[in-house]
């Protein structure tokens, strides 16, 4: 990696302003110092990247030819009206429109383009939430990332439609991609953002994606991460949230499929009276791994954070939940709750759950809890005694368990879609069909992107 960067430094930094180039250089130095994570580090104790990293990958440090992925936009939107921003293999799909500028000041499009067009705006936020010196993979991303998505909602503006950021991986060779997203909501702004990571074929991939999210004073972000990738994919997603005074965040992490999914969620309350709900649902089977690392920094008083992460692990799936809430000395009247609940369907499924509170003042309300168990046999008997077959009864109980998270989805069409997908996933129907994971019914459909994006 170090050699790769040194050999391509000029290309990679070609669109950087002096300020951004400096951030890149610092990140490179930080990465060299930190090195790739290994299982000796506490937060990587249960997730070993070695095997995944040893597979050979293609690196693309410049955008791929655009003709190849025009198909990405062949989707119609019958039920849910959204603004779609597409990424293919980590590169923004421009379709000759690299930036959308809506009349009310909203900007959306390619980060690569935004660096040229709005350098001052980018410099104001880029690298300000993500901390390269404490996270090697974030540093690696900052070192290499050129493109990704930039979304800017100016102060006082409410995005009229939900925005769908769709990152599709579809490449004939194994691919290593590192894209970077920057989402900025000004004061009193509002946005619903649906962020999907999907793979489109069975080729192995390693995605190291960093997203920085700034939610301004009194602003509101309703955020969804929907992860549905093939079994040879590794997705390392770091999202760095900065919440301003009285900002409100609802974030939903829905991990439906993927070889290895690691969500590194880092939230900083950067002003008082912030409110954050972080929900997670993961449904894993076979040898899949999911690792949710949630760090919430109550750096200001009177903020509220609620974490509810739930998972169902089948076969030999492994899960990790590491929740860390830090309540600083002056952060009085903090209200922080952490919950992690798991159902293990087999003896070989495993979960390592560690909710953790670190509190430096007395005037707080904090709680944490973690439960892991099997399906409730009493409830199964009850359902069966009413004539419901054992399989249906199991499904009903699993769905009910998952629904505590699904029902929190505020966009009705999206909720309906996720409900269907969760049901399909629990019935084992999603996995038969990975080429078109979301919508197709046969595994050998032609490679066409006819997914009904609106219903994702």
């Amino acid at each position: 990696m170090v050699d790769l960067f040194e050999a391509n430094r000029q290309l990679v930094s070609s669109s950087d302003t002096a300020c951004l180039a400096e951030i890149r250089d610092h990140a490179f130095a930080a990465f060299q110092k930190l090195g790739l994570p290994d299982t000796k580090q506490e937060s990587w104790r249960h997730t070993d990247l070695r095997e995944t990293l040893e597979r050979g990958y293609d690196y693309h440090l410049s955008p791929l030819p655009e003709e190849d992925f025009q198909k990405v936009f062949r989707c119609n939107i019958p039920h849910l009206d959204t603004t779609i921003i597409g990424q293919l293999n980590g590169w923004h799909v421009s379709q000759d429109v690299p930036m959308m500028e809506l009349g009310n000041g909203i900007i959306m499009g390619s980060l690569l383009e935004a660096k040229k067009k709005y350098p001052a705006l980018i410099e104001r936020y880029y690298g300000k939430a993500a901390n390269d010196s404490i996270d090697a993979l974030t540093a690696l991303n900052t070192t290499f990332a050129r493109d990704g998505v930039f979304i800017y909602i100016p102060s006082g503006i409410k995005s009229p439609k939900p925005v769908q950021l769709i990152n599709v991986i579809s490449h004939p060779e194994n691919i290593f991609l590192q894209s970077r997203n920057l989402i900025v909501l000004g004061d009193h702004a509002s946005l619903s953002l649906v962020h999907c990571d999907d793979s489109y074929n069975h080729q192995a991939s390693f995605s190291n994606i960093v997203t920085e999210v700034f939610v301004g004073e009194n602003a509101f972000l309703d955020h969804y991460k929907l992860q549905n990738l093939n079994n040879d994919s590794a997705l390392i997603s770091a999202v760095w949230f900065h919440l301003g005074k009285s900002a409100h965040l609802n974030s939903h992490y829905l991990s439906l499929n993927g070889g290895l999914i690691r969500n590194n969620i880092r939230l900083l309350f950067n002003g008082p009276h912030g409110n954050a709900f972080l929900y997670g649902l993961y449904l894993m089977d076979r040898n899949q791994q999911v690792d949710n690392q949630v760090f919430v920094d109550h750096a200001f008083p009177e903020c509220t954070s609620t974490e509810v992460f739930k998972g169902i692990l089948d076969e030999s799936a492994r899960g990790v939940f590491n929740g860390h809430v830090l309540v600083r000395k002056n952060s009085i009247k903090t209200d922080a709750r952490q919950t992690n609940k798991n159902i293990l369907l087999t003896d070989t499924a495993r979960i390592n759950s560690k909710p953790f509170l670190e509190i430096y003042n007395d005037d707080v309300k904090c709680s944490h809890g973690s439960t892991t168990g099997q399906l409730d046999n009493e409830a199964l008997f009850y359902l069966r005694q009413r004539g419901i077959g054992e399989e249906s009864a199991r499904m009903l109980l699993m769905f009910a368990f998952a629904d505590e998270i699904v029902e929190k989805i505020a966009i009705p069409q999206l909720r309906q879609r996720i409900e269907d997908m969760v049901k399909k996933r629990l019935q084992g129907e999603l996995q038969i069909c990975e080429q078109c994971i979301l919508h197709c019914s046969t595994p050998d459909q032609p490679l066409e992107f006819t997914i009904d994006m609106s219903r994702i």
Partner: protein
Amino acid sequence: MLLQIKNLHAGINGKEILRGVDLEVDKGEVHAIMGPNGTGKSTLASVIAGRETFEVTSGEILYQGKNLQKLSVEERAREGIFLGFQYPVEIPGVSITNFMRTAVNEIRKYKGLDPLPGGEFIKLMEERKKLVEITSNLTNRSVNEGFSGGEKKKNEIFQMAMLEPVLAILDETDSGLDIDALRIVANGVNKLRRADNAFLVITHYQRLLEYIVPDFVHVLFEGKIVKSGGKELAIELEDRGYDWIKQEQA
């Protein structure tokens, strides 16, 4: 004969609880099973329903001429056996409406019928709710979650009314009920009594039997039915307690 239990021996983890139960129930009849705590009343109910934690070691249960032991829990239910639970389980996230629709349609499928159309299902539900004086919002809630003791038992009778079983076993449905709830529950049962169904009412006290008048009363003691009679036996037990039964057995 609807139900024939012959010399039934059953237990849990190698411990024998039922030690030779004989019982016959015909359609149109209400039987009460009484007896002191720990004599096997709930075990009998569970074994008829097919709870797998109990093991039948000898004897047999015939239901409409079929050997019940060959049927799974859900098959017995679809054949018309209903168990009203002493302690109904809370199932967070499953609404009563969804639960009942699934149950009704799985039973219909077993009988070779098409699913009940949505409108008809709602109508049926509204009608049966009235039977047990259930307010409308209860059915939108998760099954038994946060229900009071009375609500849980009313919900059991409501489910029974929805599924219209042939043989309903009510396991201490009266426990934990105040007099108003008891009256509502008993009224529900009485409205569902017909010539083509039967009830097995398990109770510790005679109180419930003032409202649901049984045709037969049996005393289960140490895993056997040791005395049977008419409804007057229940009154005698209320007056004299169970000690005289124990002495007779000794």
